[in-house]
């Protein structure tokens, strides 16, 4: 045998101590159940809802959560997650049993979420009428509502009222007014090396080229790719690029655009509500206008609706739905969420109240023409090529040919997926 007598003694000693130690430790540790999933066989156990929120709104929601617990006895555990990975993490974890009960997100996630089968329908009931129409539309996917909306976000034009006293009536008027103010950037919008089609969408729709057409129920129809009508838009875009006025440039990143407006070098800035606070803090006399259109038709920006989803595999769906529909859907809570994120509340009552602030009212007005971002999975194929094509056009490529190739690439990608 490999073992000498000494090793044998050692082995026995080890075994004995191991037994002793493990006996001691297991008597201390009774089988523990984590608090994430409540046990149904002990009626006295409290239900705990796990809610994922992004870091910015975690504090606001924590206050809301403690009020809810006081009212119903349901404990709400707010977990702050990184916005960039929240969607993927949720999809991976939803079915494992350790996922959250409720997750915060945006309406354009719905295509992916339903394809993966991870969200459960949410019944708004009669309260659906209390929300802004665009919010309800966005919360709806293929005829079913999956989301409790809490905020509606859209682009608008911020104007430095000290430089330009009057709002612009059209795109060209805006440039003229900006130039008259004598600043380096009459109009600024962020792009980046790969373009930013989200920001340019209002101009694209003004030329009659939305991404997808809609069917009778109003939902986006992936078989109707209307991107192809964008030849006129492409030509106009080229005239704003390096071969034209260079008003829209891929050199301008979000950071640079912010800097130029905040230091008073830009008169008009196409951006979203997330930048208003910074502008006000920098001392700019900010006024929020509708987006001036380059054509006679209205410029319709995308509307992004934010809301809460329920995990299909949650063990606490009754509590989750109660929390969402009956509590988060009330005016006070919606206003509290607005206070932390600056996004217009989706509940009409709250929105009207908040809109007494002229800056918020400006976004609300600009959002009247807004269209929800398509949530269908095919939209993913569009994003692949869209921005890059626009960047190419801005940098001098032939607009019509580039736009045609874009349409073709997207069409191929959609049919091939």
């Amino acid at each position, binding site marked *: 045998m490999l073992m000498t007598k000494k*090793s044998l003694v*050692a082995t026995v000693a080890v075994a004995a101590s191991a037994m002793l130690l493990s006996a001691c430790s297991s008597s201390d540790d009774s089988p523990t159940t984590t608090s994430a999933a409540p046990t149904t066989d002990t009626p006295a156990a409290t239900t705990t809802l796990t809610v994922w929120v992004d870091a910015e709104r975690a504090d606001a929601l924590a206050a809301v959560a403690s009020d809810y617990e006081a009212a119903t006895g349901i404990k709400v555990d707010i977990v702050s997650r990184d916005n960039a990975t929240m969607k993927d993490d949720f999809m991976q974890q939803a079915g494992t049993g350790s996922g959250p009960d409720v997750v915060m997100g945006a309406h354009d996630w719905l*295509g992916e979420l339903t394809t993966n*089968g991870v969200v459960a329908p949410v019944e708004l009931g009669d309260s659906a009428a209390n929300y802004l129409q665009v919010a309800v539309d966005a919360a709806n996917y293929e005829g*079913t509502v999956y989301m409790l909306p809490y905020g509606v976000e859209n682009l608008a034009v911020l104007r430095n009222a000290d430089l330009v006293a009057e709002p612009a009536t059209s795109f060209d008027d805006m440039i003229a007014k900006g130039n008259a103010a004598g600043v380096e950037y009459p109009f600024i919008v962020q792009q980046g090396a790969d373009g930013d089609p989200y920001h340019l969408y209002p101009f694209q729709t003004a030329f009659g080229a939305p991404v997808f057409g809609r069917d009778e129920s109003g939902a986006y129809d992936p078989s109707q790719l209307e991107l192809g009508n964008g030849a006129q838009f492409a030509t106009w875009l080229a005239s704003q690029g390096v071969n034209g006025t260079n008003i829209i440039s891929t050199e301008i990143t979000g950071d*640079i655009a912010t800097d130029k407006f905040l230091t008073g070098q830009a008169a008009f800035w196409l951006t979203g509500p997330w930048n208003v606070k910074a502008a006000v803090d920098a001392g700019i006399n900010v006024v929020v206008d509708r987006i001036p259109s380059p054509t006679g038709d209205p410029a319709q920006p995308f509307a992004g609706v934010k809301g809460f989803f329920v995990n299909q595999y949650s*063990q606490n*769906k009754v509590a989750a739905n109660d929390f969402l529909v009956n509590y988060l859907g009330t005016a006070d809570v919606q206003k509290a969420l607005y206070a932390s994120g600056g996004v217009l509340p989706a509940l009409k009552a709250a929105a009207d109240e908040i809109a007494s602030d002229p800056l918020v009212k400006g976004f609300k007005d600009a959002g009247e023409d807004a269209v929800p971002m398509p949530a269908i999975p095919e939209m*993913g194929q569009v994003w*692949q090529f869209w921005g890059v094509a626009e960047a190419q056009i801005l940098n001098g490529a032939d607009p019509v040919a580039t736009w045609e190739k874009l349409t073709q690439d997207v069409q191929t990608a959609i049919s091939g997926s």
Partner: protein
Amino acid sequence: MTVRDKAPVTTRTGPLLFKIVMLALVDAGALFAMSILVTKGSYVAFTIMLLATVGINAIYLSKRALPAKYITPGVIFLAVFQVFVIGYTVYIAFTNYSTGHIISKGQAIEALLSQSQSRLPDSAQYPVTVVRDGSDLGFLVTSADGTALVGFADEPLHKVEASYDGAGKAVATSGTTTLSFGDILAVQQDVFDLAIPVSDSAADGTLRTQDGRSAFIYVSDLHYDAATDTLTNTATGVVYTDGGRGSFVDSDGNEILPGWQVAVGWHNFTSALSETSILGPLLRVIVWTLVFATLSVVLTFGLGLGISLLFDQRGMRGRTLYRIIMVLPYAFPAFLGALIWAGMLSKSFGFINQVLLGGAAVPWLTDPTMAKVAVLLVNLWLGFPYMFLVTTGALQAVPEEAVEAARMDGARPWQVMRYVKMPLVLVSTAPILISSFAFNFNNFNIIYLVTGGGPRDVSASIPVGHTDILISLVYKVAFTGQQRDYGLASAFSILIFILVATISIISFRKTKTLEEID
């Protein structure tokens, strides 16, 4: 020949006691873990733990297996965390884990049925009270005209007498007990799943509640038959069967999602190798990846070694300060460094163009060639301190007497360098260089942070860029748009690994001749 290592003749009590205590702790922990695994029914994990614990005990209690005693602690961590990751990737490569196939079959059926529930457009919102009759749960609802209706899973809705609260909602009826909200929460899964038939006709739908306070009438157009494992769309009559590829399909092969995760054998590998959209740019990307990895190693090693040699001079003052400054790029978080560089290299607003080059407009990040230069430059900045540290260490290991001997023989400084120092340094750093090559071959982060793989190659039909390396190409192919194909990505990862490992093994073989024979 070296003396074969034999265990010492005497075992001192100190070390022996220490060994016993450590083993006892490990065994205690293992036993505890195994007991929990047994209660959970994870027999595979249990067996692995058992074998591992027995193995560890055998190693440390036996008189031999000396090398194992030293290597085991590190190997345990390696096996659990590194090897598992590799094993998991291999496992996923043989499944269809991707968008639409993330959950299990049972969950998919549950999701499909839940999504197919649609509320009847004219269904009123009924205030509901959950009641219990014996062991059955039921709903007591108040209709708009104030009448109370009650129903159970096997008993359609019918009128009853009920007592009402102040708001006109029926809250109790005879023969049942009313559940408070807290009671509902205790059995909320059952309450949520409960579907009360509205009438004897299934077409009238069922009454359900989601929040325990209001109920609505729903109709579902999907019906699942567990016996035949088919889904039937009651509205269109189409029958869906399990297509074997992880989803329900109709007779034409159209699948409905969500589907589920299922093993698919070699499918991911064949599609990885035959994916036509990537074959076009693939060759270019492979060449660039090899160039990028090789140049990164050569440049960082060259600069790092150069700096080490620069400071390898006695009597040079201020070396400490210089060394600190040289290490600073490595001390600074790498991803931040990459981001800062990306900002500085901006064509119109970047520091490099505006200030250093006096207003030039060098397209660092937008021109295909310049972008490659930019990426190499940033990688050089990020990597040379590491090589500097390593070569400094290696230079320290060069025995003084070898250098002295060479000098005595009349060698000039550069000859000393070439024939004495360099070979010794290369011998000890060869594996570092090879592993640095492999690291940069898969250096997804830096490409992503500095250029995002761009500028975009507009001639390709997939979103690939001029600075994309193999791994970032794989990422873009597997994770395009909203489609996430983890199975495909895993298959690609394995193929890339085979490629890199082959190159590395060959390089190791080649440099073996430099190593001293043991």
